[in-house]
């Protein structure tokens, strides 16, 4: 740029600031207003949307699909077009060139003219790049980011139209075409957003992440019931397990209590975590941690440990609101229902064996219908029949079934608590109501 041009620009600028505005007090209010608006927006976002909880790191879980922050999504998507050997072109060469072009823009854009009608090439290229970034971002985004993007478009389009109409210079040659282009771009983006949202409509699996101790305890309790009860008993009291050795011989092994004070006082949370993760293969306990071939994540292991500690350790301060025993006590004359009484007992005492993939005469007890109708010897419960197979077995009687003896239930260790047996008996007696309403209707 020659000195003459520079002088022209500087003079024009000098003229434009004569009698124009002062930062203070003319325009600073706008800056303050925008800052204040952003501040409120931040508080609103933090309060109403919060931060999405995520589970603890599990380096063994290679199935986890990582997602970068939304503003890197376009790169992520862009890289998909450069598979294998070419990846570095998409990862390093092209972004590197673009970054260089961005930084040094004023050095190679030698066009001294500033009005938009005189820099069509520059505007065209920039618009193309920005559109590409926006479209790549949408292609890679989830419903949530799509929604946010959509709202932002609306806002942005609004602001754009507004500022085009309100522009200080009234007659702008490119105003009409600009409005047309903006409208078309907006429609196209809306279309892409809509189509992307539809494409992703199938719900993705949500992992529940516990944050408070009561929540962790209850998740831990569920996991314990399913994974551990068959060997350690519902209260960690232990018992006996049968292990089949490599040569097919069966051997009965005692399992000591894991809920005794002895155990609770001598083992730290870390050591419980390690034992459960690692298992005790030599003693008959399989590993549960993903790192050692099991299927529990670090968060899940932590929930189990929290459950054990707060339930069995008499020194633990159980936080208010924590449910230590989820089985409600049955009052005199009350009729138990599946929902309120039977389900929690089954979950804690029976489900660890009576679920898919275990030996149980196909008696899957996962839901109400299953308890009534499943099993090789179904029905195992018959309304009003005090000789129902289920009632017999939990009261210590073996039953001859179609394919051999049905043992006492639960087969190892102690029988379940008398209060629980009572729940089953009174439930069958009353006709096995499913919901609390059904039960109270029967009680009348």
């Amino acid at each position, binding site marked *: 740029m020659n000195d003459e041009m520079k002088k022209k620009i500087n003079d024009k600028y000098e003229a434009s600031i004569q009698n124009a505005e002062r930062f203070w007090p003319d325009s600073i209010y706008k800056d303050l207003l*925008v800052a204040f608006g952003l501040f409120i927006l931040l508080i609103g976002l933090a309060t109403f949307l919060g931060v999405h909880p995520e589970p603890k790191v599990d380096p063994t879980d290679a199935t986890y699909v990582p997602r970068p922050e939304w503003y890197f999504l376009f790169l992520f998507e862009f890289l998909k077009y450069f598979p294998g050997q070419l990846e570095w072109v998409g990862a390093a060469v092209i972004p590197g060139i673009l970054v260089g072009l961005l930084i040094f823009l004023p050095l190679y854009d030698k066009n001294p003219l500033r009005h938009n009608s005189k820099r069509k090439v520059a505007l065209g290229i920039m618009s193309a790049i920005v559109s590409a970034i926006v479209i790549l971002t949408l292609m890679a985004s989830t419903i949530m980011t799509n929604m946010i993007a959509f709202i*932002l478009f609306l806002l942005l389009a609004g602001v754009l139209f507004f500022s085009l109409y309100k522009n200080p210079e009234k007659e702008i040659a490119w105003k009409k075409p600009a409005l047309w282009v903006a409208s078309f771009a907006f429609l196209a983006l809306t279309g892409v957003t809509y189509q992307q949202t539809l494409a992703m409509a199938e719900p993705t699996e949500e992992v529940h992440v516990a944050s408070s101790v009561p929540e962790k305890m209850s998740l831990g309790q569920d996991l314990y019931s399913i994974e551990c009860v068959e060997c350690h008993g519902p209260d960690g009291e232990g018992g006996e397990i049968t292990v089949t050795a490599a040569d097919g011989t069966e051997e009965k092994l005692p399992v000591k209590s894991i809920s005794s004070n002895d155990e609770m006082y001598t083992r730290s949370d870390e050591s419980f975590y390690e034992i459960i993760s690692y298992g005790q293969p030599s003693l008959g306990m399989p590993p549960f941690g993903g790192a050692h071939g099991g299927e529990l994540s670090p968060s899940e292991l932590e929930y189990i440990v929290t459950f054990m500690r707060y339930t069995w350790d008499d020194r633990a301060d159980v936080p208010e609101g924590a449910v230590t025993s989820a089985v409600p006590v049955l009052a005199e004359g009350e009729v138990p229902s599946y929902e309120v009484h039977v389900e929690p007992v089954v979950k804690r005492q029976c489900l660890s064996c009576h679920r898919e993939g275990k030996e149980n005469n196909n008696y899957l007890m996962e839901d109400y219908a299953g308890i009534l109708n499943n099993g090789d010897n179904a029905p195992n419960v018959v309304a009003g029949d005090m000789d129902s197979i289920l009632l017999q077995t939990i009261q210590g009687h073996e039953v001859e079934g179609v394919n051999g003896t049905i043992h006492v239930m639960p087969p190892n260790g102690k029988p379940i608590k008398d209060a629980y047996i009572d729940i089953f008996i009174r439930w069958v007696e009353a006709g096995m109501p499913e919901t609390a309403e059904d039960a109270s209707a029967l009680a009348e």
Partner: protein
Amino acid sequence: MMKNIYAWLDERLGFDDMYKMLLDRPEPHGNWWNTLGSASLFLFIMQGVTGIFLTVYYAPTPDHAYDSIQYIMNDVAFGWLIRGMHHWGASLMVFVVFIHMLRTFFSASYKYPRELTWMVGSVLFLLTLGMGFTGYLLPFNQRAYWATVVATNIGGVVPGIGPFILRALRGGTDVSALTLSRFFSAHIWMLPAALAGLIGLHLYLIMRHGESAYPDQDD
């Protein structure tokens, strides 16, 4: 009394000059788009303030990072608010800085004599992205961990220097305690220091050249 203190300070600091330089600047007529630079600055300051509060409880080790964040969210008074604002502030800042950049592009403000303002600005944009990248790992949850594994892997595919980039980013072959402490230090010391310094330069240049006027037909 107050007057005396004011006079004493003014004599040494020069409030008048400051007022002229910082506030009483003449500007061409602008519009709301001109607020985005100061909005970026505001968000940078907010990130600094909330970030400093977070470091009170945050522990940058793989064993404690996750739990310390849980603690901030559940047990520290208003911890959830501070973390929420820092979390959303990061996204918002990237967005606002980006729009600010587009505004200066479309109003052709980067041309003579404001070339350097733009160049410093684009480095600021890259640094802002860097803050987002390094901050993402700090909660050390599944998402953070795997996103960082993938992102640093990408650095590793560059022929020749790839393995070096990978090791420099991770501090070893895997994403580990060393990666976390590297990212932490970059996130709270190196990048903010660079940002603060360059923002100072950026603002100096703006005061020196004044805000650009919106171009008209003859420009």
